[in-house]
């Protein structure tokens, strides 16, 4: 057991931290959020030049073959500096293509992402407002040598500028009795005829859109995986997204905590620093404990991915903890700041504006509670394995 970062892990942590510190101070975040795209394309191009989107993609596809822990560390820095970018939404899709795509798909799309900064988005949630596949009503029907897609997706991030979508649909031959049957994932060109994109006003300013597919024609070879493998692919996306989003949330929570500790050390009332009051101290200590705990849940889950042996219970535990800790540190941080914390001039609000989007991406809390419960239910407990 060694909790220290390797040389490569330290390097990506240090270089990305310095890069975002320089390129993405909070004033820049404010400017970007005020603009319609939700991100700065110049900054995105620099991230591509630094090899971020290809960090964990194999060298054969233009990536640098880094490990999953490095990617989690990069997400952590993105969280610390609240970097507005289509990085996460693109990586979500890239990892799914890497795992389930055929050779043609990988050769066609992964180098575009790694080297040219093509942006993707996962268009999956519909009117049920959730990530699980049960609410997918988008239909796809075979038509000649391809398919025709009809349906509407909601809260698709950075969709106005995305080049392509990974989208879920139910194939019309599939039975509606089983929510997981007949699920298919497609690679959809955002510029295809019949794709209509409209921005939804959301708090995080990450260009969440309604994406409507109206008789969109999809070529046969743009199915991801072996036909009706959609539910498996969505599950895989939830697994890696949970850990990566939790890593970002850990970075964000750590930054909010530092802002709050510094403020309570500087702010004086009754002739002494707020941080000298025991009631304040204990609140800070409790937050610190949860943030430290989140760190290890994230790192261990990422480590398990890096050993190609992902741990479903840990993935869900990391995201479940991230959801509660991020919201808690933002809210408690604001309370500890007093009235000023509630104003738009303070940076803490920039972080808190992301809370709901982060909670949703990679899976909301109840989804992960159920996943943990399934894991617990299915495994044979250690004491039975040994004593019986």
């Amino acid at each position, binding site marked *: *057991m*060694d*909790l*220290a*970062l*390797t040389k490569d*892990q330290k390097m990506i942590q240090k270089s990305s931290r310095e890069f975002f510190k320089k390129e993405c101070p909070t004033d820049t975040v404010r400017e970007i959020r005020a603009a319609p795209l939700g991100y700065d394309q110049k900054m995105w191009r620099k991230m591509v030049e630094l090899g971020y989107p290809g960090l964990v993609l194999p060298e054969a596809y233009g990536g640098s073959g880094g490990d999953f*822990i490095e990617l989690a560390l990069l997400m952590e820095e993105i969280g610390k500096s609240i970097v507005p970018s289509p990085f996460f939404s693109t990586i979500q899709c890239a990892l799914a293509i890497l795992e389930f795509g055929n050779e043609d798909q990988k050769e066609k799309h992964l180098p575009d992402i790694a080297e040219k900064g093509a942006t993707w988005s996962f268009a999956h949630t519909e009117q049920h407002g959730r990530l699980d596949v049960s609410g997918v009503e988008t239909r796809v029907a075979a038509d000649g040598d391809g398919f025709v897609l009809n349906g509407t997706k909601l809260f698709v991030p950075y969709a106005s500028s995305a080049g392509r979508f990974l989208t879920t649909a139910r194939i019309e031959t599939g039975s509606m009795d089983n929510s997981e049957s007949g699920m298919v994932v497609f690679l959809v060109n955002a510029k295809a005829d019949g794709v209509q994109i409209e921005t939804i006003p959301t708090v995080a300013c990450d260009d969440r859109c309604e994406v409507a597919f109206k008789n969109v024609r999809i070529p046969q070879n743009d199915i991801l995986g072996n036909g009706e493998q959609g539910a498996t692919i969505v599950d895989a996306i939830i697994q890696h997204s949970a850990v990566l989003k939790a890593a970002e949330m850990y970075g964000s929570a750590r930054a909010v905590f530092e802002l709050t*500790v510094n403020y*309570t*050390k500087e702010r004086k009332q009754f002739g*002494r*620093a707020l*941080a*000298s*009051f*025991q009631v304040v*101290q*204990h609140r*800070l*200590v*409790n937050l*610190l*404990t949860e943030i*430290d*705990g*989140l760190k*290890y*849940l994230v*790192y*261990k889950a990422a*480590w*398990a991915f890096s*050993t190609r042996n992902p741990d479903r*219970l*840990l993935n*869900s*535990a990391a995201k*479940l*903890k991230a959801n509660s800790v991020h919201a808690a540190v933002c809210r408690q941080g604001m309370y500890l700041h007093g009235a000023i914390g509630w104003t738009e001039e303070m940076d803490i609000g920039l972080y808190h504006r992301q809370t709901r989007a982060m909670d949703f991406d990679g899976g909301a809390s*109840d989804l*992960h*509670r*159920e*996943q*943990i*419960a399934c894991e*617990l*239910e299915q495994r044979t*407990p*250690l*004491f*039975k394995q*040994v*004593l019986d």
Partner: protein
Amino acid sequence: MDFGFGEKEERFRTEIREFAKENLSSGKYWVMQAEGQTDDDWAFIMSVSKKLAEKKWLTLAWPEEHGGLGMSHIQRMVFEQEVGYWGIPGTTMGISGTGWVGPSLMIFGTDEQKKTYLPPIAAGDEDGIWCTGYSEPDSGSDLASLQTFAERVGDEYVINGQKVWTSCAHRAKWMWLAARTNRDVKKKHDGISLFLVDMQSKGLKVNPLRNFVGQHMFNEVFFDDVRIPAKNLVGVENNGWGQLMTALSFERGMAVCASGMMKRMIDELTEYSKETHRICDPLVRARLADMSMEVEKLALLSQEAAWKAERGEAVIHEPSRDKANMDEILDRLFQFGVELLEGYSLMDPTHRNNRWIRLKGMIEQCYYFVMGMAVAGGTTDTQRNIVANFGLQLPRS
């Protein structure tokens, strides 16, 4: 970054599990009590101590010259995790012997003290059972204010005063005692000394204190002109506070063992939920998931201190952070446990062979015990003060 354990650690883990299977498979699970409720329990605990001593596991952290195995911090952590999960009793030699009396004597003790007191602890003998005399009626979290007085008279010290919450005093042969040797000091931390006291001494009286469910774990200990030889002073007179801080630092790592125990409880509660079909209830599923996540978190957090120590880094606030968190999670976990047991949670856990007892009574046992745990080794809020001051460097309140 590597969360995996090496071959050596994994082999050791397997060996401990075999030990558990051999010695504890008859449904015996000792949870958070070193003293045993009955004389039969105590005899069993001592018999396990003996077996642990034969494997040198009782003193696995001690250097080889003192009968130990000189194991690494990581290996010790593995042992503690397993002790917690399997509920292996008798690992502490009373409440203090292997943990801090032995290691402190190795640093501050005379050669004679080492020769006299270390071997019985390492051997798991009755003569190696120690209790610890720190707290007094007016000195709890504010330990340095202690008033029990030891006066040097010729070749002896004469001790007067009272200790309280003394776990295992009714079983112990020896007490590791902190007493004042000088009242005329500017700082209360000065003028304290550490002593080794024979529990059979004339004038020493042990009075049982029962907890609110009638269990006997700790005691009051009265000193009425108790005379001990001057050679039973540990280290330098009036210099005891620094030694005591060192001894307290050996008391760390409670969260490692507790996280092992909590993993067992998650497993037990899951099995119980499956057997009773409560697992179909979405509320039960959600609460199991929340508790499992908290236990995983604490298990990971509690590894940090051992890893730092292994690297030779200073371990400062981490054990306090983990102890406070452990207290909180224990409280939630057993609240959930008794709510899951519903009617069966009404049982008196000391009747663990009663036909209506479920899960060997361990859920109720812990439910009534966690308030004691929250106080032992420094209260939850005292631990938070330590984290605030030394971890976050916040100004003193």
